[in-house]
């Protein structure tokens, strides 16, 4: 089955990429945008979706610094 894994920096961890995007927006005329965070998306096809959590913990995300969310498509 197809799945999409969203990986984002854990809340509370300084996310300079998100901050840089946020700071650039007003210059382009986009006001009122805040709390920007930049993460990663991995799309995959899994024969055994049961093991996706383990896969995320071991490789796709680093649980110390990142949260992940699995979306089944």
């Amino acid at each position, binding site marked *: 089955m197809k799945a999409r894994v969203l990986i984002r920096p854990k809340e509370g961890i300084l996310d*300079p990429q998100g901050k840089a995007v946020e700071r650039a927006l007003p210059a382009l005329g986009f006001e009122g945008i805040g709390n920007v965070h930049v993460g990663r998306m991995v799309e995959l096809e899994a024969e055994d979706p049961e093991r996706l959590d383990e896969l995320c913990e071991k490789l796709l995300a680093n649980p110390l*610094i990142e949260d992940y969310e699995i979306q089944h498509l």
Partner: protein
Amino acid sequence: MIWGVLQFPGSCDERDALNACEVVGDEARLIWHEERDLSGVDGVVVPGGFSYGDYLRAGAIARFSPAMEAVAELAAAGGPVLGICNGFQVLCEAGLLPGALLRNQELRFICRQADLLDDEGNVLSIPLKHGEGRFYAPEEMLDRLEAGGQVAYRYADGHNVNGSSRNIAGVRNEAGNVVGLMPHPEHAVDPLTGSIDGRKVFEALEKYA
């Protein structure tokens, strides 16, 4: 002692690491990442570079290489392991060292000389060059590392250029035989390049061989 210096696709500092091992009076040989057998080697340097292109996260893929399995065994047996820059990232990803390395606070790749403090009070002048060198660990883990003497190197005041938690430049495992740091001691072993302070980093691990 004999050091093995790992070589991954994308490593770039393994030659300087080999040279550094020899400068401090040890022997060294390269170990390709597919080698599983570390027999004949007393300690390992995991060098800097961009192993596997830094895909996914720096160090994330390299930790699954056959050579890293052997390094984990060597570390568990008490042998010396030194991770430099990308090597530090690999050791953290492999769970052999605590914490993680995040994108530099200012998002820029930084290349400069920095002063480090070791835990004997020495000031070491050592170059650093990285884009993802901001040491991070949760507060309670930082407390534990400090209480347990696991902070091996700190940036001197004004030299914490990447925003690392509590000025931490390098850490060690609980047993002390595994050390990782972001700056590059292997580039500071010859007077020609301005500092030989990097030798101390290699010498400090020799007692675990």
